[in-house]
């Protein structure tokens, strides 16, 4: 593993030349010292691989009702979780929440899952959430921006102590050109989406014991707030998009017919590839 992460460095140092240029390949081969054809092929295939980690970030805020004071009207929790509540700590090493400067120690560092932070206050502000990754994943951090929301929208009724305000966003961390070691570590982890691996990639046997133990610690499936978590359905979104595309395509077809009619001859305009 250290070997392969070392071989990644040329790419990270000069991101501009990290395309499949001969130079970076040579570096890789030199480091690997086993430059047979198969290996080279594999490296190329790995370059095209794209691993994604579906995450959800946001906040849940409870109004304190009678206990609310001027400066502490809400108790809120801001968090980053796996989209289906898997443990994302296989990829994420540390999460830094940058709070408003009026808080004591506004920079809060969370080094272990669940990556969340609870506070109380009265004001809404933007929280910068910085995700740091394990060394074999990526050296660069990723920033998320979440606007802390405490007060419900006007149309959703008055503030209530029982029903919290929940605002969550779905996103995916996309990791390109993963290192072999990382790939081997996460290829069957439920928190990570790995596309079909290239043939001939030597996969280590899964390690169920350690996995199970880790899960117990890091996932958010039994989270105390999990009843408020939003369910993000990809299928719904795809369905909606498919319907919209169908509608648009039907109109395109109709317009083409009309154009032909106006022309009075077969269409000789630009060929449009899609449909």
């Amino acid at each position: 593993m250290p070997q392969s992460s070392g071989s990644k460095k040329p790419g990270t140092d000069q991101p501009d030349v990290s395309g499949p240029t001969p130079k970076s390949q040579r570096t890789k081969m030199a480091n690997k010292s086993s430059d047979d054809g198969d290996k080279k092929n594999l490296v190329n295939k790995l370059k095209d691989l794209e691993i994604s980690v579906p995450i959800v970030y946001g906040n849940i805020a409870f109004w304190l009702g009678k206990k609310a004071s001027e400066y502490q009207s809400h108790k809120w929790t801001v968090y980053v979780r796996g989209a289906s509540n898997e443990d994302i700590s296989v990829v994420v090493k540390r999460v830094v929440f940058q709070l408003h400067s009026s808080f004591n120690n506004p920079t809060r560092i969370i080094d272990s899952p669940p990556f969340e932070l609870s506070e109380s206050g009265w004001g809404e502000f933007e929280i910068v959430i910085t995700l740091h990754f394990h060394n074999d994943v990526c050296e660069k951090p990723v920033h998320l921006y979440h606007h802390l929301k405490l007060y419900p929208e006007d149309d959703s009724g008055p503030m209530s102590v029982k029903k919290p305000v929940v605002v969550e966003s779905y996103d995916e961390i996309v990791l390109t050109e993963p290192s072999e070691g990382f790939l081997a570590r996460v290829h069957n982890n439920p928190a990570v989406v790995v596309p079909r691996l290239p043939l001939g990639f030597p996969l280590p046997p899964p390690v169920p014991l350690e996995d199970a133990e880790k899960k117990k610690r890091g996932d958010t499936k039994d989270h105390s707030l999990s009843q408020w978590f939003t369910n993000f359905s990809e299928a719904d979104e795809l369905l909606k998009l498919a319907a919209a595309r169908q509608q648009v395509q039907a109109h395109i077809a109709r317009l083409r017919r009309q154009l032909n009619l106006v022309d009075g001859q077969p269409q000789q305009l630009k060929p449009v590839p899609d449909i």
Partner: protein
Amino acid sequence: MDAKDILQGLPKNHSAIAYLQNEKKSRPPKESQRKPDGISREVYALTGGLAPPLVASVDVNQFKRRTQTENEKVTWQWLPFTNSARKDNLQLYHWVRVVNGVPPTGDYSFAKYNKHVDVVKYTDEEYEKHLTDPMWTKEETDKLFDLCELFDLRFIVIADKFPSSRTVEELKARYYNVTRTILIARAPSPGDVAGHPLVKEQYNILHEVERKRSLSMVLSHTKHQERKDAEVLAEAKKILETRKAAKDPDALELPSMPDAIPEGEDKAAVVVDSASPTPNNHLMTGPVAPHVSEIASTVASLRSMRVYLRTYGLEQMVQAASSSAGLRTIKRVEQTLQDLGVNLKPRVPTKAVCAEHLELRKEILTLLNLQKQLQYKEAEGSSYRDASYTETPGTPPKRSQRADQDRTFVPDSFSFGGERGVKRDQKRKAPAARLSEAPSSPAQSKRPRKFKLDG
């Protein structure tokens, strides 16, 4: 001198106010060690807690002084006063803040705002000697100076009250000319008044007239014209950028692509773009084939990032795919997405969703382009028919057929790109209006078609 001052003057046991004040004091301000005194919590929060210029500009001592004076006995009394700006010694009353029973002395505080302009007075002799002007009679000039004195040089009012019709500029020019001439004539030597503003800064009537004309032109710009201007500017900026990019291929973030392809394409785009903004050319610059190089380079640069967020990737791809489309077209694509009930930014941006979203946007671009082409063809056809002048027997069926087409491509559930949306400007309504009129009145069908051209 606000309501709080007045209330402080009242007896302390006065019911609710005292209670309110006490409660306010009893509440410990939690953030007091962080936020400076005298600034409300909300204002402090707006500054982001940084040491903002706002704090420096608000004199904290001002608030302290107020608390120091609390041991003074402040009352408000209804007292008479005289206004030195009045000549009639009228006696009026007002409320005055009285500290420790001593009423304030000195002039009425608003008297200083009574300003007068010293308008030059000329004698008949002086007029004969220096001020004769073929455009102005003595009576008119006298009247002008009377009004200047009466209205303190408020030329808009003077022009309104002036008996003969003179523009504001003419009045100003005459007044300043006369005043300057008198000033110079009365001075012992011209050098003594050379520094006087009236002599140094001469009133330039031509410049003033031109300035006001340009100003009114800018102000009377319609929204439509403004939009067009903005579009032309945006287009120009895009062309400049493409040219720049074509000039130094090193700037392209595309190491793995052969340089010839993007360069050639960009150049072609520049040529077409800059050719002319007529609808004819617009068709050709249409976004049917989004820059392949743009998309490829975006993919490459995303990959080289090693890590990025899916939403960021989608944003970049959307930008690349619509890089060849104009600002208005992009807006129309987004309008269409909304009409279709699709979020501009997917709620669950997985890889598949983002790919579909991109495809949908591309298809909408294609659709809008086809719409444009159809409109163009129709306009072309109609102008051809107009040229042939006589209504041939073949035309009526063709027209009614076109009416049919229009109806078919105005979708039932939504309108594409808002082009036929009701809320757009008048011109856009024309095609819809035509629908009902087309079959009955052939003459009217020409006008709306022309409107469609600039759509």
